[in-house]
């Protein structure tokens, strides 16, 4: 590839990203805002009910004042347009129950959720692909049977139950890992000890959040490897005398990378959703718990803000993956409009 061609390619990629951002993110913002307001509209009870209920009571005048303050007495259309207008100006508003900017509340929770997602993604990729490779080694053999059994179990197990059982085993019975929280709070470690301590706290929740996707990656990898095994180029490599490990690492797995990356894009959304449960079981101060709290307290601005931020993030991550496909895979470049989702199917 010449220098000029590389620049042209990059420019083309950036145009593609910019176009996608505009055409996908804007409708998402409007859609999420509309959907949320609608949900909140049909849900029983509002933030004023919860505030008064949580304080042990209030007078009728106080309740009316709160509803006015939150704009709950305005017509639906006015609230919707007002919110959209503010969001387009970069303002997510004030939390109704806490009275502080929504953006700050979300920012405070993001690192925990990202960390959890990162650990979980690493777990699911390493363990999932590893299991898939193991299963594909001798299809129908005892390792394959064992792997398939394990995959099915992981697939079927609800993550909250998996989490609780993991706590029972690793924290209560064995005492190896902490049962929850983000850091040791009794004695606060510093420096490297702090980082190690943080990692220790994230192992069980990361594994719990990963368990379903470990199974997904394992199945995917196993299927792709078995397919590719029959391809001509693999037979040629074998004939040339390349070692099995070399063929697997440098020729077969790179071919499996695209569908797996596609799955990563899908998993991002699932990770946000799954974090609600995992953060509750392990008591982690992440975005998932903020969603739950916002929902229970009917904090409309907070809930909309979180859903907005997380859906925009999932979209951006997927667009970046899309760009990655575009850059690494010639088929995406030539086949106009070929989407990663279709590539995923093609791999099977």
């Amino acid at each position: 590839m010449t220098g000029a061609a590389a620049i042209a390619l990059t420019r083309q990629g950036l145009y593609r990203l910019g176009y996608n951002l505009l055409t996908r993110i804007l409708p998402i913002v409007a859609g999420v805002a509309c959907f949320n307001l609608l949900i909140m509209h049909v849900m029983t009870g509002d933030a004023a009910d919860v505030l008064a209920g949580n304080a042990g009571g209030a007078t009728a005048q106080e309740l009316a004042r709160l509803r006015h303050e939150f704009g709950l007495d305005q017509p639906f259309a006015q609230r919707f347009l007002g919110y959209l207008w503010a969001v387009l100006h970069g303002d997510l508003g004030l939390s109704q129950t806490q009275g502080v900017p929504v953006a700050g509340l979300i920012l405070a929770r993001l690192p925990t959720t990202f960390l959890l997602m990162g650990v979980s993604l690493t777990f699911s990729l390493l363990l999932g692909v590893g299991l898939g490779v193991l299963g594909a080694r001798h299809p129908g053999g005892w390792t394959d049977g064992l792997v398939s059994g394990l995959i099915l179990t992981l697939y079927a197990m609800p993550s909250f139950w998996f989490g609780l059982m993991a706590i029972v085993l690793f924290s209560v019975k064995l005492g190896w890992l902490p049962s929850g929280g983000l850091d040791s709070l009794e004695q606060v470690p510093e420096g490297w000890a702090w980082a190690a301590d943080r990692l220790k706290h994230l192992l069980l929740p990361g594994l719990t959040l990963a368990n379903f996707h470990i199974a997904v990656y394992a199945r995917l990898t196993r299927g792709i490897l078995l397919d590719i095994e029959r391809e001509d180029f693999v037979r040629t490599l074998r004939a040339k005398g390349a070692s099995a490990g070399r063929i697997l690492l440098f020729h077969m797995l790179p071919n499996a990378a695209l569908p797996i990356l596609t799955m990563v894009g899908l998993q991002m959304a699932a990770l946000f959703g799954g974090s609600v449960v995992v953060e509750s079981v392990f008591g982690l101060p992440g975005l998932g718990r903020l969603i739950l709290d916002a929902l229970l307290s009917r904090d409309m601005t907070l809930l909309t803000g979180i859903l907005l931020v997380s859906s925009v993030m999932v979209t951006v991550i997927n667009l970046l993956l899309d760009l990655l496909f575009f850059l690494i895979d010639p088929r995406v470049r030539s086949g106009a409009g070929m989407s990663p989702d279709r590539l995923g199917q093609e791999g099977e």
Partner: protein
Amino acid sequence: MVRFPIGDDTEGLTRRGLLRGAAGLAATGLVGAGLVGAGPAGATATQADRGGTLMVTVPAEPPHLCSAFDSNMGPCLIGSKVLEGLIAFAPDLSPIPVLARSWDISDDGLTYTFALRENVLWHDGHPFTADDVVFSFREAWSVLHPFGRTAYANVVAAEAIGPHQVVFRLSAPAPYLMSYMNVFGAQVLPRHVYEGTDIRRNPANWAPVGTGPFRFVEWRHGSHVRLERNAAYWRAGLPYLDSIVFRFIPDPLARALALRSGQLHMAVSSAIAYPNLRLFDDPDRYTIDGGDGTFLFSQFLLHFNMRQPVLADRRVRLAMQAAIDRDRLLALAFAGHGKAADGPLPSTLAKFHVPATGGGYDPALSERLLDEAGLPRRVDGVRLRVALDFIDTVNIHIPEFLRQQLRQVGIRLDLRVGDLASYLRRIYTDETYDMALNTAHALPDPSLGLQRLYWSKSIVRGVPWSNGARYANPDLDRIMETAARDGDTARRWADIRQWQEIARRDLPILNLIEQQWVTVADNRVLRPSRQADGLFASYADVSLAAQATPA
């Protein structure tokens, strides 16, 4: 051994002349005897047991930490370690001095004089004075606090006489007033922090500045609150602990497992669900204690919607009462913690409680009453179909048990679970419900906690926790209103007896269980002094033993 009253308790003794009545006597040396509990809770700290971080969990993360305008338990479970009240309560409910060193109630019950502790500092270094108390009363307790508005209704003025004396002047006697002056009902706020601000929005509600044994350090939302030792605390040499961390774990089973794995030392306010208590039945390692919530006198109850025609029939309500075996409910759903209720007042409030003569479990009577009410069994055996509303934090075994019991007499119960917001809306605004489960605190005096549940003037559409049964009885209204301002003890007690009689006869509310707030603690936790309001104890004298002490 007896560590309370500490510091200037001698002053309390010399001021005995000021104190009148039983409350006054108990406030001095006599209290000590009642303060020492049994087991590890009764052991005291040795020098070796100073320091350490106490790890505690509570049932839910509170919305803020200030109790001066909020009657819920959540904020006070944590805030009571940072902020203080004028008094606290010994296990026998007699007042113990806290920020008030002594007090005097005039013979006509219209003047309350509190002598305040001197040389007390707020955590930011400002001196604590009578102005803080007057400010808290005028701006928070009497106007913003949902119960305070009633509790302090008869108080017309609060004045500071010098820097360390406060006088409350009343328009009519308020015999229940002293039962509410603790950190839960009369939390003293720093005037210099709150004055001129919207009290309910003041940032100090999330980072309190108090006079208590622990100062606020951080609140990591969704994770924990950290408090640390206040070296300048007015009780010399206290607190023992270096810090306290309150952890918030939403999942009840995960809370139990965290305590079991040793990551926590203590779970308060029934944070461990009843079915999980058996994880802690080893008395060599854990102490299970139901005494910390005595002051609240909480009752688990079912209220009827008196505006539903079928339920407006008294016979139907009595039939429900006769169909429910409360002793079995206690054993099955409350793991035996508490007591089967027998009326509007908990039996533990022995001063006022009149034992019930009837109203026990009697399914045959229940069926007879339903027949009389014109509700015969239809072909499918069902007489009546009603819905029961409850909040999702209620142990599901309770409504399930009620459904089974009522089915025996031909009443079909539809269970409707909701989160707090939808429950409040259905009960108090939409009024689209038949029956609802709820927990109500009677508090040490029925005028404080119970009146709002029976009083027709607290039927206010849209207001949570008002008179949910929508019950109105002019006779009972009059009796309750008289009881709330009668200085004559004998006459007042007669009124309260009659109140119980009417409530039992009309039965707008079916009291099911006298609830306990269970504390589960590792035996390393030493809590020498016990309080009736132990949930809101300051933890100044709590310590962590280096080794677990056998019970």
